[in-house]
């Protein structure tokens, strides 16, 4: 520590200037930290919101059925027969109707009950029967996805509900109307209902209260502190005598819900029986698109995206790299190459939808290639990322020191040998990075694919690049525009799947870079 007064530099003005410079340094550092902090916060917010939304689609509810595949109904099936969807669904319906006899002779109730499981949900089972006819004549347990509205109800997403335990009470029945009695047993229920602003006399506008015991449920119509009354929705008087009672307050009125009180009652009965379980939603990855959210999956879109990327990669990477090598290493620097360079840079900035229009006009219109096909999508995306690949590869080639070229030329290598033996290996990590980042961009592009018709509803996994297909970002677009609530978490799930692919591609870039850089 020297005395500043002694130092020849430490006069007042010099110190002041020094302080100002240090303050500027510190300020700049903080600007940088703020910028990074802002970027990180935005990223975290985005990921958190998508993840929380998608988490609800990570699992779903299935109902198990014991299907008796008797020989009379299913005998004589051949392997190339169409899957017997209606016959299997008939078994499912029969099972449900037998379980809930109150639906007999009431077509409206029967319809409501069948809506628990959609007809198409049995398609995989029906296919399996055709593929594996040995199971005919046996009883087979299958798990079928619950209809999306009921699934959302159980997840607590589309109708707010809370339960109040009541305990054991007395029960009597007169003409299908149950009376539950208990000294002051329903005081807490009254308190909870008034807290939620519900009025039993006006259930149409304030929601419903269901009382459940065992597999039986009644709907509340009058509520007193010691006595309640209401019609039995499903089950029997016996359950109320032998099981503790729980009250379930559903705050939104039935007319504003996608699930009816009766459906909830049946669902609770199935659940009490242990037939409803929450399982991982693997069909999100193994199923193709569907009109029913609980049946829809991303497999067709994943395959479509991969096929599209395959076409894109096989065109854009070799053409882009060869073009960049020619422009950087062989082409003379003159007006023409200057013009080409400017145009490549401009092309990289053209909005992607313009490439989509070009693809629709040229590939579909002039060449007559099939609509909605990955080959056309791949061609359009190849055009789109070509400038990106060329620019990145040229930058990588430029970064190779001239001394390496001199060294190779001086031992008598030709220009091509110089480029391919010495310059290319050194530029390869940079070229690869450019190529894969270009591919990542292609994977996330939506607009050009919309214009060439890859937004079609595709229920079959495409077998080749000329089949009808869709792609992951387009699937996100089409699911996000659906009205039903159940599509929302599904959309979040596809976004996550797409992000996983993108992160994997970037991981490959980092890996290849490290590997090559260590070798050289």
């Amino acid at each position, binding site marked *: 520590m020297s005395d500043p007064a002694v130092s020849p530099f430490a006069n007042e003005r010099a110190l002041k200037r020094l302080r100002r410079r240090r303050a500027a340094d510190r300020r700049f550092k903080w600007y940088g930290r703020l910028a990074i902090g802002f970027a990180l916060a935005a990223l975290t917010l985005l990921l958190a919101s998508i993840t929380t939304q998608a988490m609800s689609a990570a699992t779903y509810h299935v109902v198990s059925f014991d299907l008796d595949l008797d020989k009379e109904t299913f005998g004589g099936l051949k392997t190339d027969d169409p899957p017997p969807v209606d016959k299997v669904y008939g078994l499912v319906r029969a099972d449900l109707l037998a379980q809930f006899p109150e639906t007999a002779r009431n077509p409206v109730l029967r319809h409501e009950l069948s809506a628990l499981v959609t007809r198409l949900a049995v398609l995989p089972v029906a296919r399996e029967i055709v593929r594996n006819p040995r199971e005919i004549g046996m009883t087979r347990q299958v798990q079928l996805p619950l209809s999306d509205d009921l699934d959302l109800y159980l997840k607590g997403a589309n109708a707010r509900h809370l339960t109040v335990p009541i305990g054991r009470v007395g029960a009597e029945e007169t003409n299908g109307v149950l009376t539950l009695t208990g000294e002051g047993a329903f005081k807490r229920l009254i308190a909870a209902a008034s807290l939620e602003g519900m009025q039993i006399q006006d259930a149409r506008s304030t929601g419903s209260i269901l009382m459940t015991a065992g597999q039986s449920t009644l709907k509340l119509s009058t509520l007193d502190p010691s006595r309640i009354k209401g019609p039995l929705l499903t089950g029997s008087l016996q359950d109320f005598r032998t099981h503790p009672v729980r009250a379930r307050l559903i705050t939104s009125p039935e007319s504003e819900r996608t699930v009816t009180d009766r459906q909830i009652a049946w669902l609770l009965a199935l659940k009490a029986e242990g037939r409803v379980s929450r399982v991982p939603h693997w069909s999100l990855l193994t199923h193709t698109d569907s009109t029913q959210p609980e049946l829809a999956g991303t497999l067709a879109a994943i395959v479509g995206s991969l096929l599209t990327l395959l076409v894109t990669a096989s065109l854009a990477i070799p053409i882009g790299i060869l073009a960049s090598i020619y422009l950087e290493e062989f082409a003379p620097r003159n007006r023409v190459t200057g013009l080409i360079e400017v145009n490549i840079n401009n092309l990289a900035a053209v909005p992607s939808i313009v490439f989509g229009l070009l693809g629709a006009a040229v590939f579909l219109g002039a060449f007559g290639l099939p609509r909605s096909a990955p080959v056309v999508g791949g061609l359009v995306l190849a055009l789109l990322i070509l400038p990106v690949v060329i620019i990145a590869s040229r930058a990588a080639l430029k970064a190779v020191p001239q*001394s390496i*070229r*001199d060294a*190779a*030329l*001086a*031992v008598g290598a030709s220009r091509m040998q110089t480029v391919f*033996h010495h310059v290319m290996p050194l530029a390869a990590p940079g070229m690869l990075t450019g190529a894969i980042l270009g591919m990542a961009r292609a994977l996330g592009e939506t607009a050009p694919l919309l214009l060439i018709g890859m937004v079609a509803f595709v229920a079959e996994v495409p077998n080749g690049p000329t089949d009808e297909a869709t792609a992951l970002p387009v699937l996100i677009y089409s699911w996000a525009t659906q009205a039903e609530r159940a599509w929302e978490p599904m959309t979040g799930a596809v976004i996550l799947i797409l992000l996983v692919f993108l992160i994997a591609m970037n991981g490959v870039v980092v890996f290849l870079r490290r590997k090559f850089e260590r070798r050289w």
Partner: protein
Amino acid sequence: MDDTLGNGTTMEKGVLPDAPETSVRMSCRNINVFYGEKQAIYDVSLQIADRSVTALIGPSGCGKSTFLRCLNRMNDTIEGCRVEGEIMMEGKDINSPVIDPVLLRSRVGMVFQKPNPFPKSIYENIAYGPRIHGLAQGREDMDEIVEKSLRRAGLWEEVKDRLNLAGTSLSGGQQQRLCIARAIAVRPEVILMDEPCSALDPIATARIEELIDDLRKRYCIIIVTHSMQQAARVSQRTAFFHLGALVEVGDTDQIFTSPRDRRTEDYITGRFG
């Protein structure tokens, strides 16, 4: 006057007065070099003797490196560079279209200012040239070429146990000797050296200078140098360039003891440069 070099023995009297036993390897006549519109070399004529070291000296920017690069047509790689005049080697003009620069460069090797080994193993650095020219039949032959080249460059003893190590992991002086070995490996007749010691410390420089003196017995060496001491130490003949023109050429002893031109004298006595 006859200055063709058909059999490699003819030489011009007066140009090489004190080296009658030495033949002429390359003969340059009226060389002009242009970078675009700008002329860098003016009318240089120079004969280069075989099995000796010719030093090109001169102040920075006098065109000595440019001239050197004419001799193996490395100037071809520079955009907008144009060379006029004739450079005869074995009776042929190396600038004529029938001469392939790739073949020429295998016979006229070059060592650069900064050591520039390939980012590959030491072995690969040497083997690359012979491989692309098909000089080796099989692995053993190649091993022999690599060993011989490294021995001639005085590097064998230091690297024989680690031929698979990256060439770039060697020290600066070793890297430069590796580059010399790489140049020797394609069996050139002429080796061009563009300030080969300017990036090296004095000890590494001394080793390279020893090596150059040793290589002189087999090759024709042309060296560009900024150090007059180095020129005096390693060369037999010295050419002084100034402002793109060849001012004076002669025996090194004569140039450094009794220069004919005033500018040469000023330069070697340190009055400019």
